[in-house]
């Protein structure tokens, strides 16, 4: 029996559980001996002219070796916008000398001998500012009254698509329109950003930093510093979570590397959580308008999604997220007409970047909300409206009106399985009984279906490399350009090699994240790793077996075609002659047994599924409690169900968090209101039930494993299901919409407004 598809526990765990992983702040590399500690001085004001930065007092503080401002960085090229379609005027300074554009914008850096001295000295840097009006929120930004970059003449960073034709909804019996907020959230990897840098005598810099792809981070740092990429050696230590926010490098990492050069000492930086919550990338941040039209029989004829994406102060990955939202606009549905349009606006807040799902959860949340509103309008069960409009099962590629080509799917089956597993009919009956009785605790049932795109990012076109070597002692090493930070690649990649070679997973070491050792790689993001990096390992193992057969054929005087792998002994034997064999280790002893290969996926894949969320809402207080989450998440063939389930669990929790709790808030002056974990309501164990997972696997033809991505699916499905369940729990009281997060106050006020006979448009009644 193949090891693939079995619940192999992680080989990386014993160290994690006894000595702890080695994160960037834990490094004890001797090259970092005597490293200075960097502390950033950051703006406490959202938008202001910088009049002066006085570092004199700070320079005299105990332990201070240097204090740097923009004046010390004239050698560095400015930070250009990350995409060529963004106007060059949206340029960022390494340290602000003209204008600060968000609370957390860096103004100076203090280097001290000891960690504890940095904060004391940073407090002594005096920054004189002339405060400007702050731009908070996309609606405010769109007015173009206050401009973040006056030279650009607008706050619009980018615009995509055209308005819908005037006759778009003509012929629809029913049209429903709703403004929907997909709020800004903080990714909050438990490990904050951290880096260390040291320059060697060879003129190269070694940078350790927490990230999701060493090769990409290296390229960015070299580009930003304006140096040859060959001069940067980037090493990724263990990484304490990424969730999209650690894709590539942050300018701080490059700056620390530069300061290591200026100071002539190794430099380390680990940010505080407050710093992280105010100046690391945030996610989501879309203001959407959904409009849906169709017939009273439940058929949708036309659907439109118009999005204003908050880009934050400086353009980062967030600028392109709406293009993914637009691509996935119709979701699982066979709507005849689909329209999508978006623009991205600069605001005086930290930049928006990728966060678990990155543009796709926003599309799913919008279309699922639209379907619910449509169902409520025509008085039909929302699950039934979904069934009517779902794309029927397909195994030939399905092209959507927004330009996506779905690989394989059976959305109706996913929905049916989720409904059945949840006991949907019984839940509805229980709900009706409670409504009839007028219970304080009302039941809400939310259903979502989703399809998302995975493996669509960098690497998809150029391929992902893998190197596999068997050693004479019978062990093997895998090199991968993917970049695990919790996903368990060390185990799964070893399983993929073991499946072909028979070498036990414990004897296979998986290495990643050292750009000198592994120059090429696409990293881990967009749920790409297994279907690209894993497939590359599989391909390497297949090729290694072929290579070994050629060598063994000579040694065993047999035809290579007559050789088979004996998985039990990790050797090749001659078919029908069991005694005649040679092990991979023996072959490796003769000559290096190594394969380097590149796997290029045929195209992106489209995982899909259906979620049912059940909440209980205390209608007197408005507080909703999630009591059940039932999910079908079809990611094609599963290599390690234990780890795949873990990905689903984590994703589900983050979706529930967005639906119910989490939101990054700024006041109207741009002051962060959620800058510690005491204020930002990171979801905890008490706010979640245990999850009920239902299996379903529809393999993709796009890679030999049949695997699609699973990293983000849980989040994409659970967010709208939970939001829908909360609204459903008070629907009988007249509520049609409540924005996320569906806090108790929002729900209570929506009920009050509905009961008072008022319209509950926009949901944000506070």
């Amino acid at each position, binding site marked *: 029996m193949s090891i693939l598809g079995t619940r192999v526990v992680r080989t990386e765990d014993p160290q994690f559980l006894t000595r702890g992983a080695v994160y960037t702040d834990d490094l004890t590399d001797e090259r970092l001996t005597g490293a200075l500690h960097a502390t950033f001085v950051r703006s406490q004001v959202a938008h202001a002219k910088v009049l002066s930065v006085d570092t004199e007092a700070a320079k005299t503080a105990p332990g201070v070796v240097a204090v740097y401002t923009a004046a010390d960085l004239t050698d560095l090229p400015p930070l250009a916008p990350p995409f060529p379609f963004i106007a060059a005027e949206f340029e960022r300074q390494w340290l602000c000398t003209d204008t600060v554009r968000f609370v957390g914008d860096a103004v100076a850096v203090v280097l001290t001998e000891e960690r504890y001295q940095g904060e004391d000295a940073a407090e002594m840097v005096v920054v004189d500012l002339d405060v400007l009006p702050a731009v908070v929120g996309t609606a405010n930004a769109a007015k173009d009254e206050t401009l973040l970059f006056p030279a650009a003449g607008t706050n619009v960073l980018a615009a995509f698509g055209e308005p819908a034709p005037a006759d778009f909804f003509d012929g629809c019996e029913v049209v429903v329109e709703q403004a929907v907020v997909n709020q800004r959230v903080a990714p909050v990897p438990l490990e904050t950003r951290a880096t260390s840098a040291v320059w060697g005598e060879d003129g190269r810099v070694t940078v350790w930093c927490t990230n999701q792809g060493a090769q990409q981070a290296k390229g960015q740092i070299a580009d930003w510093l304006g140096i040859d990429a060959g001069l940067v050696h980037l090493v990724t230590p263990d*990484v304490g979570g990424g969730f999209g926010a650690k894709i590539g490098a942050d300018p701080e990492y490059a700056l620390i590397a530069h300061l290591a050069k200026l100071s002539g000492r190794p430099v380390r930086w680990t940010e*505080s959580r407050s710093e992280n919550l105010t100046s690391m990338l945030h996610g989501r941040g879309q203001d959407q308008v959904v409009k849906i039209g169709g017939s009273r029989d439940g058929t949708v004829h036309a659907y439109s999604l118009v999005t204003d994406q908050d880009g934050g102060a400086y353009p980062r990955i967030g600028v392109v997220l709406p293009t993914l939202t637009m691509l996935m606009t119709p979701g699982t549905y066979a709507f005849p007409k689909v329209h999508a349009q978006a623009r991205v606006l600069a605001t005086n807040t930290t930049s928006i970047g990728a966060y678990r799902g990155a543009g796709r959860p926003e599309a799913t949340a919008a279309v699922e909300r639209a379907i619910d509103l449509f169902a409520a309008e025509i008085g039909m069960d929302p699950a039934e409206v979904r069934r009517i409009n779902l794309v029927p099962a397909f195994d030939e590629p399905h092209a959507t009106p927004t330009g996506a080509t779905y690989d394989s799917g059976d959305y109706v089956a996913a929905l049916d399985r989720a409904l059945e597993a949840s006991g949907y009919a019984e839940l509805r009956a229980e709900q009706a009984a409670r409504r009839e009785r007028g219970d304080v605790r009302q039941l809400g049932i939310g259903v979502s279906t989703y399809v998302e795109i995975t493996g669509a990012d960098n690497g998809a076109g150029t391929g992902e490399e893998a190197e596999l070597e068997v050693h004479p002692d019978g062990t093997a090493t895998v090199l991968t350009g993917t970049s695990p930070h919790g996903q*368990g690649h060390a185990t799964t990649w070893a399983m993929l090699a073991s499946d072909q070679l028979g070498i036990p997973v414990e004897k296979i070491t998986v290495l990643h994240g050292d750009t000198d050792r592994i120059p090429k790689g696409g990293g881990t993001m967009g749920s790409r790793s297994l279907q690209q990096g894993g497939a590359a390992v599989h391909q390497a193992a297949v090729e290694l077996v072929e290579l070994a057969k050629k060598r063994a054929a000579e040694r065993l005087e047999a035809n290579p075609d007559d050789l088979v792998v004996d998985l039990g002994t990790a050797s090749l034997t001659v078919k029908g002659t069991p005694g005649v064999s040679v092990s991979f280790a023996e072959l490796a002893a003769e000559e290096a047994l190594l394969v380097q290969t590149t796997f290029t996926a045929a195209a992106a894949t489209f995982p899909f599924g259906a979620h049912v969320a059940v909440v209980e809402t205390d209608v007197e207080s408005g507080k909703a409690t999630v009591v059940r989450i039932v999910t079908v998440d079809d990611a094609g063939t599963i290599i390690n169900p234990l780890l795949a389930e873990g990905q689903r669990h984590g994703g589900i929790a983050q979706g529930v968090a967005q639906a119910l709790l989490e939101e990054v808030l700024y006041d109207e002056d741009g002051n962060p209101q959620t800058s510690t974990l005491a204020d930002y309501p990171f979801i905890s*164990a008490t706010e979640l039930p245990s999850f009920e997972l239902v299996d379903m696997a529809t393999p993709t033809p796009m890679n030999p494993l049949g695997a699609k991505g699973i990293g983000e699916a849980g989040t994409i499905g659970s967010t709208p299901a939970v939001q829908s369940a909360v609204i459903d729990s008070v629907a009988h009281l007249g509520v049609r919409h409540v924005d996320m997060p569906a806090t108790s106050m929002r729900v209570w006020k929506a009920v009050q407004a509905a009961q008072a006979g008022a319209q509950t448009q926009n949901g944000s009644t506070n």
Partner: protein
Amino acid sequence: MQVSMTVNGQQRTDEVEPRMLLAHHLRDNLGLTATNIGCDSTSCGACTVIVDGLSVKSCTVLALQVEGGEVTTLEGLAGEDGELHPVQAAFQSEHGLQCGFCTSGMVMASVGVLAANPSPTDREVREGLEGNLCRCTGYHNIVRAVLKAAEAGPVAGQVPQRSQEVSA
């Protein structure tokens, strides 16, 4: 000032600034980096260690406050023969960790949960871990792991008793 404490069975005496937090003392002075720091506000629990038999957040305790005390960190949880503590073993078998950053604190808090309640329910585990945040697992498998560890009996709520060793 001088501070003496027993850490994972070893007697330690060190010179510290009064403001030195126990978490930094463990990490920077004693090299015990399994204990992580994930927030500024006593919220995340990543820095949880056991002090004198009770779980505490070491980012909100001064090293000096532990004068004469006994500290167990993740590094001191396995047996001297390397055998995993029941909570450690269960975290592996139930896939209760992903990125690992919360894990040290989560494991130590779980030992504390089982010390207070050797056979908790799903809900009681969640309430016991309310001060520990995890971004990766959705807590599902962490809860499974604690329930699984409880099957080992009272030992799952205990830290190993070590013969004391003295070092500089």
